[in-house]
């Protein structure tokens, strides 16, 4: 028999003490959704089951005790740290869930400038870690736009990626070791070594698990020397995305590693670059960084590649540098955005996918055309590629629509999910991945079998083995 709400709260209080169990109704209601249904919080209209409590463990031992108890009592657990999730990973889809919030586990355990690694608890905001390592002339190299607000646990749990990924990689390239707590209360520590071949790389069971397998309590990430003085910015305008993708491919195939390598389509470019790009211009931009010789060689190499494309018109680098300096989203920007939505009912959503070089432009064109054609009230449909690899790149669809004729709680059904559906369909049709870096959450979970194909067997087996009672973040990655 499942526990009552009162019994759940009581059980948690016994484990962590009364001060670490939050039952304030407003906080619980707001905790029932994340950015996927952000309109529910903005307009204060809620439909998801209200969690029974938010619990704030102080250390790994308390996390282990909570998970053991939840596992024994069949209580659904939703791990959380920075609460910036965009795909419904934090949404409570079953009644009386418990949010296990790691934000009190916020200690930087060590910074080791000799071995170039830093260890921190899951609730350390990335910005806090970055600020501390900068004191040593170092950087984590990780810079998602949510850097000021996202925490290390969530960043690892979602396989996040930062704006400098072409040089430093995604979070999976940065994590050297970690500690995770599993539903039975087992605490597993993966040691920090440069590499090993002692069987499968089990870090990847944990990285990207989105709280559906385990709770990440501590992570160790790589550090890199920081040379901001050598940052070199390059930018061009051009008339079509196909050329932009081709240039990005040339840069990657020739072995250059700019930290930023992007191409924006005209719609998306209009949001950032309308002061120098015409309404039908795409914008191609790069940042080269690192030691002086490397930054210069990278910038020179990219310049030579783009010079071979006369259809690209170079723009002063100050345009790109100024854009770069205003990239991240802190809490005040998020609040201003919420206010804009409240007043205008105009909503910005994003969906990111990846595919090989042969398919990416077709996916972009097909999805864009269908969305404009099939979805009502679209005010902007565009996107950019921002993370490139030797074999392909990502496409970050960026779109706005007016919410018309429905309440805020119906926005996802009327607009957002149908758009996601189109993007997933067009991506899967051409062999791409439906999620590049935001995680599956609950929003894209319905497509999980199509995404995985026959490898779904591995995913399903992982879930069954590590979470046999199904208490970890129900509905995330694998739908209910």
């Amino acid at each position: 028999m499942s526990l009552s709400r009162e019994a759940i709260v009581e059980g948690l209080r016994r484990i962590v003490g009364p001060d670490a169990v939050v039952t304030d109704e407003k906080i619980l209601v707001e905790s029932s959704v994340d950015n996927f249904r952000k309109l529910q919080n903005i307009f204060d209209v809620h439909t998801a089951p209200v969690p029974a409590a938010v619990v704030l463990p102080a250390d790994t031992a308390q996390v282990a005790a909570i998970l053991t108890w939840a596992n024994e009592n069949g209580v659904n657990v939703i791990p959380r740290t920075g609460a910036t999730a965009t795909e419904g990973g934090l949404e409570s889809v079953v009644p009386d869930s418990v949010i296990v919030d790691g934000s009190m586990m916020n200690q930087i355990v060590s910074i080791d400038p000799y071995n170039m690694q830093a260890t921190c608890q899951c609730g350390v905001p990335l910005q806090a870690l970055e600020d501390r390592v900068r004191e040593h002339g170092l950087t984590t190299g990780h810079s998602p736009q949510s850097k000021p607000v996202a925490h290390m646990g969530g960043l690892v749990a979602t396989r996040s990626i930062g704006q400098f990924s072409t040089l430093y990689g995604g979070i999976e390239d940065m994590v050297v070791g970690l500690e995770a707590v599993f539903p039975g209360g087992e605490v597993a520590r993966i040691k920090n070594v440069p590499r090993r071949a002692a069987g499968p790389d089990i870090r990847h069971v944990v990285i990207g698990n989105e709280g559906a397998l385990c709770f990440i309590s501590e992570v160790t990430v790589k550090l890199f020397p920081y040379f901001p003085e050598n940052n070199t910015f390059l930018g061009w305008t051009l008339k079509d995305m196909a050329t932009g993708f081709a240039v990005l491919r040339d840069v990657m195939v020739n072995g250059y590693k700019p930290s930023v390598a992007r191409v924006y389509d005209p719609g998306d470019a209009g949001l950032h670059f309308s002061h120098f790009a015409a309404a039908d211009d795409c914008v191609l931009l790069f940042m080269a960084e690192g030691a002086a010789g490397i930054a210069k060689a990278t910038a020179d190499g990219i310049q030579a590649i783009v010079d071979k494309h006369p259809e690209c018109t170079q723009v002063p680098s100050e345009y790109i540098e100024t854009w770069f300096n205003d990239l991240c989203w802190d809490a005040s920007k998020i609040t201003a955005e919420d206010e804009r939505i409240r007043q205008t009912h105009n909503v910005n959503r994003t969906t990111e996918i990846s595919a090989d070089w042969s398919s990416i432009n077709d996916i972009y064109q097909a999805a864009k055309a269908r969305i404009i054609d099939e979805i009502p009230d679209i005010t902007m449909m565009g996107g950019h590629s921002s993370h490139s690899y030797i074999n392909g790149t990502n496409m970050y669809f960026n779109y706005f629509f007016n919410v018309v004729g429905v309440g805020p709680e119906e926005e996802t059904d009327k607009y957002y999910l149908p758009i996601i559906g189109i993007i997933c369909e067009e991506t899967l049709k051409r062999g791409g991945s439906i999620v590049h870096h935001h995680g599956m959450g609950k929003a894209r979970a319905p497509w999980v079998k199509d995404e995985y194909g026959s490898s779904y067997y591995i995913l399903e087996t992982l879930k069954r083995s590590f979470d046999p009672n199904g208490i970890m973040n129900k509905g995330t990655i694998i739908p209910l």
Partner: protein
Amino acid sequence: MDHLRIVVGFKVTPDYEALRAPDWARAAGGAAESGGGPGAPETRYVRRVLGVFDEAALELALRLRDARAEAGLETSLAAFSVAAREADPFLQTLQALGFERAARVDPRAALDFAPRVTAAVIATYLRRIGSPDVLLLGSRCGPGESGAVPFLVADELGLPCVTEVTDVQIASRGRLRVTFAAGGGWIRATIAPPCVLAVGNAVVSMLRVPTLKDRLAVRERSLDVLSSGELGVDAAAALAGEPTVLASLETIDRERAGTIVAGRTPEEKARALYETQLRARLERL
């Protein structure tokens, strides 16, 4: 009034929030080359945005039109900007939102902090198209603005000017119920147009967004573009007659020091807060 002619004047400004410290430093050093002339910050490399109060004025005009339509009353909407080409994308957006007339008067000169010349250009333009029933203007725009333009325009047109307007609603017999800030509070006045409304800290401050289909529908429509010279105002020459000159602009560092109140429980923190911040002050009372 069965038919109301509303005209909104707006300004496009650099996004000052996106300026970097060195851009302002250039201003403090009095270096040249920036868009706004010597002493102004370097603004060439940031995107352009609608002035905040102008954005509110535009949305208020649309809401007024919608409310009048619901009451079965006709309204015509026009928007204009005294600006270079950078205002065009904004004018196209306004066309898509239902502004029947979207015009740009190019002064061929930088009119920052030149309220008399700006007002002369605006008033001349408005006389040319026919003085409106309601003229909405933002009460001021970016940093380095005088805030005097609405008054001067109203004066030139011989119309009353209501300042710091925060809301406009329809009232009976074609009148307008205008809310404005005054004396630390708000006053609601019912006005029979014509009038100039200088919009301040409005409740509604953000402009709605047209759909792609709305944009497509007006794609073929052109903007009215004319130079101030064509109106008979030589803005560049008139600038020399502005009595006041903006010599420089700089930001004031607003960062404040902070302390984190430590304590294991809320009670401990409250006690620490009381001890460090309150007790001494209370004892002094």
